[in-house]
């Protein structure tokens, strides 16, 4: 900031200097002009005077009357510019003289305007600037009868010039003072405008907090101070959770209010030396000073999250947001503000993807993790752009508990990357969900399933039903999801009834998803609840969305049949489901005992390693042949 002010100051000084110089040059030229004009004028006037004196002295000269000549020359006494004069007859003899100057007695009759040597010798001491000799011939009717010499002094000229100069300076001073006074209002406004500009350059207008530019400067300072000083610092990168929702549902005016209030709340948690800034959008940055250990920083981060637990008092409607905070401790091995912000951002990203409304410290692991996530995203995007190269679908058989017949398959996406490694969905699906690629992926899976069904058909296997997983993120896009699915299925000529879509319990909770689920039902698809029992189970929702199937989570199946609690739960779920006319699938069946338990207690369908692992379409073909024949 100070260097900017310095720059402004020096530029002001320069402009003042140049103006001053211009004025000085103008003044100087004016003075020179005045001198030249003044001198010319003076000489003209003096010549006129000389000729008058000469004219009046003609008779005296002609008649050689020294007394009369002295009389006429006497008039010169009253002129301050003339310090002396002498009349010379035609022959060069001095007839009369007045004044202080010592005129020679004899004037050499040389032609031209140059001073006779005698006079030049006299004048050697004085410069033509101060005194001069004016020479005028006295003439009557064309005949020269004598010469008049006048000694003139330029002193009066210089006095006049001095008066003029002082006058000009005086006027200039008065004018400048007046102008200065009159423009005071203007200058004040200008200063204000400059301040405003500086403010705008460094401050965010919505929240009145420092903006990114200022924050980066402060960050540089913080790095320097934390490196030098005994105490460390911490950089917090804060992202507002679900801010988009506030903006979209309540409007941007409310959104701005919310930002301002968030800024205030964050500031309230900080100490006077700390810095909080709005980095843009819904991101804030904080620098904490005097951080002695990580726990200190964690405390502050926690405090921040807590202060925003209370709803924001926005008008007309209060709004509620959360914070995802990434924490980076300073000093660290890098000092570039951009890199530091990036790291804190990564930590924030992890915090966000791991439940939001919390904080994470940056670590190398996070770095690696974020980088790996970015890498996955890029590869997945590429794969999807290349018609899903590397991606394929595995199918896990679902068998009837009683007859062990194939009633359907669950489609599970698989990915073999360029390096030959298989990447598990647990790794890339979350990335797809965070980056929005899940929609493309989901669309591709459906298409692939249709293609595989066609292949199986050509080999004589007709799969009764295919279950495909749908991520809650896919529901965010609204009913266009269902439309796309319908289109795809239709384009492959598959019947709608063949398809079932599995959703996890929390997908039912979201109000925005409700309309999509309704659309699924309307289109003729069946809905199945995956991992039932592990999330928010609301029977009301089961009824509302006309779910047709429940899949008991494998965590309950695993402990069968020895664990009585699990057994009780499973039994209850089966009973309840049947009461609601829902089918039940037991997931993760790995032992015969589990299978037996489920079958005894009425579970309709079994799925698990015991019955079949997820396999490729070709392998599925082989598998089908091992099953008991359909009656």
């Amino acid at each position, binding site marked *: 900031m100070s260097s900017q002010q310095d720059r402004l100051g020096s530029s002001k000084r320069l402009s003042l200097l140049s103006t001053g110089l211009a004025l000085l040059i103008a003044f100087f030229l004016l003075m020179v002009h005045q001198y030249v004009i003044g001198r010319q004028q003076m000489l003209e006037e003096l010549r006129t005077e000389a000729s008058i004196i000469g004219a009046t002295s003609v008779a005296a000269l002609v*008649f*050689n009357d020294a007394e009369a000549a002295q009389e006429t020359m006497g008039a010169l006494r009253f002129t301050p510019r003339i310090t002396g004069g002498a009349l010379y007859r035609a022959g060069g003899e001095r007839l009369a003289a007045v004044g202080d100057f010592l005129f020679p007695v004899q004037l050499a009759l040389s032609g031209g305007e140059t001073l006779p040597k005698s006079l030049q010798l006299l004048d050697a001491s004085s410069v033509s600037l101060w005194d001069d000799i004016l020479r005028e011939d006295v003439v009557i009717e064309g*005949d020269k009868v004598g010469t008049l010499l006048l000694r003139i002094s330029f002193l009066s000229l210089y006095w006049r010039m001095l008066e003029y100069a002082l006058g000009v300076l005086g006027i200039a001073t008065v004018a400048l003072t007046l102008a200065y006074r009159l423009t005071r209002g203007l200058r004040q406004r200008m200063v204000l405008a400059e301040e405003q500009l500086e403010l705008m350059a460094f401050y965010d207008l919505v929240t009145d907090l420092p903006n990114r530019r200022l924050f980066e400067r402060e960050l540089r300072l913080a790095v320097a101070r934390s490196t030098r000083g005994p105490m460390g610092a911490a950089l917090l990168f804060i992202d507002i959770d679900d801010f988009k929702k506030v903006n979209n549902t309540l409007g941007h005016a409310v959104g701005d209010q919310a930002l301002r209030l968030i800024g205030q709340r964050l500031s309230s948690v900080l100490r006077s030396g700390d810095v909080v800034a709005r980095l843009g959008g819904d991101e804030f940055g904080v620098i904490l000073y005097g951080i002695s250990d990580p726990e200190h920083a964690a405390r502050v981060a926690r405090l921040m999250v807590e202060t925003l637990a209370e709803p924001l008092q926005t008008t007309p409607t209060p709004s509620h947001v959360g914070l995802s905070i990434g924490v980076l401790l300073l000093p660290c091995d890098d000092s570039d503000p951009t890199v530091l912000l990036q790291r804190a951002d990564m930590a924030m990203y992890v915090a966000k993807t791991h439940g939001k409304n919390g904080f994470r410290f940056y670590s190398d692991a996070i770095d690696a993790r974020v980088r790996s996530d970015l890498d996955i995203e890029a590869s997945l995007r590429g794969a999807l752009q290349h018609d899903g190269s590397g991606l394929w679908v595995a199918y896990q058989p679902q068998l009837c508990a009683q007859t062990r017949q194939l009633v359907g398959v669950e489609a599970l996406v698989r990915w073999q990357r360029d390096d030959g490694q298989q990447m598990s969905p647990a790794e890339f699906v979350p990335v797809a969900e965070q980056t929005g690629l899940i929609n493309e992926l989901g669309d591709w899976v459906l298409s692939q399933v249709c293609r595989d069904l066609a292949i199986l058909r050509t080999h004589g296997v007709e799969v009764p039903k295919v279950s495909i997983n749908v991520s809650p993120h896919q529901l965010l896009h609204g009913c266009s999801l269902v439309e796309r699915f319908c289109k795809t299925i239709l384009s492959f000529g598959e019947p709608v009834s063949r398809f079932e879509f599995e959703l996890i319990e929390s997908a039912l909770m979201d109000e925005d998803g409700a309309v999509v689920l309704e659309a699924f039902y309307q289109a003729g698809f069946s809905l199945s609840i995956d991992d039932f029992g592990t999330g928010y189970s609301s029977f009301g929702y089961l009824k509302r969305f006309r779910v047709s199937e429940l899949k008991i989570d494998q965590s309950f199946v695993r402990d069968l049949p020895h664990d009585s609690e699990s057994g009780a739960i499973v039994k209850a779920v089966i009973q309840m489901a049947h009461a609601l006319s829902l089918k039940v699938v037991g997931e993760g069946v790995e032992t015969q005992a589990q299978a037996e338990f489920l079958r005894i207690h009425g579970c309709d369908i079994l799925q698990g390693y015991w019955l079949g692992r997820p396999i490729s379409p070709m392998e599925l073909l082989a598998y089908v042949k091992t099953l008991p024949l359909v009656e």
Partner: protein
Amino acid sequence: MLMSARTVWRTGLALLLLALAALAQAQRQALEPELKAAILVNMLLFVDWPNQNTQPTAQITVCYLGIGPVSTALMQLDGKLLKGKPLRVVRVEASKIAHCHALYVASFEAASLTHVVPQARTHGVLLVGDSAGYLQRGVMLNLDVDRGRVVFDVDLNAVRQTALTISSKVLRLARQVIE
């Protein structure tokens, strides 16, 4: 040496004035007639004749009646340039002075005054004398020696009656001006 007439006469004048200056410096030297002649001639520089007069315009004519020291001195000045015109010094009869610009009447020619004065009045001739009492008898410009210096008196009335004009510049130098 080829010099124009003008240059010659100019130089001549210059030399003359030089001589006169020397005389003025000396002042005690008795070159009275020359002085008087010089003054007479110089006086002509300051006199204006009306246009319709009978005098020739291409020259300045100075006349005298009889031979005398002053007229001899005047003769010396014949040919001198005055206001760009040559000076002619001629001897005339008292009855025929109409063509003279100026007429010198010596002290011994007092008898001619009665003839000359009316003529002068009519034809605009400047009457110059150097004798006592001439001024009262119609002479317009009378020269005299006063304390060793040659001075002159002017009868301005007579001058005016003659329709001549004498420049005030020279009147200032007169010892006496009668109006």
